[in-house]
């Protein structure tokens, strides 16, 4: 072998050497930044989150009302009107003037304040619903896909089983049942749960009901992802090196499979928000007077002929929020999966 090349170092120019490393996450983030709709949506969602978290502070600062403050004598105030409030109990008129930017409902409650407080319910349902579903679905799907064989078979038969559940009728029945609990004395551990639910304005059981029925699709997706990665050679390499199951799952599989799962959950958030809005719409969501956009829309529907703002204000908030989550989700999907951009 005369023309034998020594295995010499690959030579590189200075610039190439000092270039910063590009992580896959960083690439995705840069890609997302290019997507204007997604970035605007992200900003909007952040504003919503801040609003939801600071609603009480804004109330204490006197910018907005509490969600249940009733301005006496000003039922159905039109938007952009102000009224003198006589909320003092002692009969002495209080000279404080309150302006209803978006009007007030039949009880004289400021619509803007209630809409801001309503952000809490929608975001909580959206994030916790998707969070619970992501958690259960991922754990279930990863176990099923990773261990395979009989375990996988059994677990997937159970998922198939759940696929036959008609979501809406069953969730309605579940909510009817949970609602009946909140008025009853049940005692024991159940009482603790009922108390939690009451203190959360009826949201807790909503999370349970939504979470219990919505992780199935996520489990299938997670399993499929794990199946496609676990046969990859880098997993085999980790095994050859002596890595245990937990290390392989957490260090090698999860970081690779989680992207599409998060994208899919982001795109599912509007679904949870819809579900809550719909359940509140038929009176099976959060307990009044906790404001929820769905409940507000339903309440406003009766007077839509003369007071359309009662529907339009919470309706716009609901539509904009779901729009933002959809744009963000689409943007994330494109950023994570360059193939879909069609380049």
């Amino acid at each position: 072998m005369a023309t034998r090349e020594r295995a010499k170092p690959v030579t590189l120019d200075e610039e190439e050497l000092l270039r910063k490393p590009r992580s896959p996450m960083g690439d995705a983030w840069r890609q997302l930044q290019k997507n204007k709709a997604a970035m605007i949506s992200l900003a909007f969602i952040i504003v919503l989150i801040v609003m939801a978290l600071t609603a009480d502070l804004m109330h204490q600062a006197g910018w907005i009302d509490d969600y249940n403050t009733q301005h006496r004598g000003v039922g159905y105030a039109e938007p952009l009107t102000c009224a003198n409030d006589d909320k003092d109990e002692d009969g002495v008129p209080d000279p404080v003037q309150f302006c209803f930017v978006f009007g007030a409902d039949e009880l004289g409650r400021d619509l803007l304040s209630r809409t801001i407080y309503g952000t809490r319910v929608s975001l909580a349902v959206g994030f916790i619903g998707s969070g619970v579903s992501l958690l259960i679905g991922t754990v279930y799907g990863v176990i099923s896909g990773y261990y395979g064989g009989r375990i996988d078979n059994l677990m997937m038969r159970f998922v198939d089983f759940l696929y036959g559940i008609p979501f809406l009728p069953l969730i309605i029945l579940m909510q009817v049942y949970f609602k009946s609990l909140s008025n009853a004395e049940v005692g024991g551990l159940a009482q603790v749960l009922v108390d939690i639910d009451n203190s959360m304005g009826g949201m807790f059981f909503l999370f349970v009901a939504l979470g219990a029925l919505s992780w199935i699709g996520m489990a299938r997706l997670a399993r499929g992802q794990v199946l496609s990665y676990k046969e990859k050679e880098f997993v085999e390499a980790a095994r050859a090196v002596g890595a245990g199951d937990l290390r392989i799952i957490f260090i090698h599989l999860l970081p690779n499979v989680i992207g599409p799962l998060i994208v899919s959950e982001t795109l599912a958030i509007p679904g949870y928000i819809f579900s809550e809005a719909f359940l509140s719409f038929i009176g099976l969501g959060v307990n009044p007077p906790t404001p929820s956009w769905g409940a507000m829309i339903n309440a406003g529907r009766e007077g839509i002929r003369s007071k359309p703002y009662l529907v339009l204000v919470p309706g716009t908030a609901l539509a904009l929020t779901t729009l933002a989550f959809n744009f963000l989700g689409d943007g994330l999907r494109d950023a994570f999966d360059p193939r879909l951009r069609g380049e």
Partner: protein
Amino acid sequence: MSGFLEAVKGVALRIADAIVRALGGTSMVKYIIRRVLAGIPVLLAITFAAFALIRAVPGGPFDFVGTKQRDERAVAALEQQFGLDKPLLIQFFNYVVNLLRGNFGPSLSRTNLGTPVSEIIAMKLPISMQVGIMAVMLGFGLGIPLGVLAAVYHNSLIDYTATFFAVLGRSIPSIVLGPVLILIFAVKLQWLPVAFWGSEPGVWIPPLNVLFSWRYISHAIMPVFTLGTGMSAGIARLTRASLLQVMRDDYIRTARAKGLPERTVIYLHALKNALIPVATIVGPLLAAVLTGTFVIELIFAIPGLGDTFVKSVSERDYNLLVGVTILYSAFLILGNILVDIMYTWLDPRIRYD
């Protein structure tokens, strides 16, 4: 006589054979049969869940008895008449036995007391189906052209506009879109009738002979549009992605290289293949129609199955609630089987044997 039987048997066998072949061979038939059989325990479990859940809620169907105060004796008599005094498991067993005979039991609601639930379903289901089917038609009719347009003019203004509208359509919840449409077209413009909150008599009458009357159409436009836009958005997105995928495949490039005009390539070659995955949306769509009509019926006061279900909750009409849940569940299970079958037909790599 035996010759006649032989002939009948021969014909029957030939028909069975044709069906088997149409379904894609015996393994597929076996697969379908097994899947349907596997659906039975699911159905049974869901029946039991609904059955137990609704009975666990305080209050019963006969709380309306007695004007000022509850008449315990009358309630007890009614409960005995409808078998509600028995232990839960016995009731369930009786219910399932009846179910196997195709009997969903009598309605327990105040207004329809004793009417067979199957009769109520037979009356309400067609109404829901009309809305659903028209919405699906609108969904495909709007969604496919939109998706094709977006894919053909990929990364152009048209694409962005179409995609934007698709996201918009997906994002506006029907509980918002419905009332807004009513506000614009019924209240302000007064072009269409407000079909809700009981101010109007029930005009939603199903017979086909009124299908094309303006009265029927005018009542249908808003609910169908409300339900259909969300679907069309999903279909448009799927069509676009699928078409883009197919257009990148080799044989399309070959067709282009052969010099076929762009439009022929798209219509003849790409679209045919691109629509394959779109067809599989039928499963999720079925679920969307089922749950979608729930919402639509409430907003537009359409006396369909969803509307009846929600009303029955407060009336504690046990049999109707359970019956409708079973019906929806059966639809879902069959829909899922249908989707899996379509996948095997469309993708020969998947085998079920």
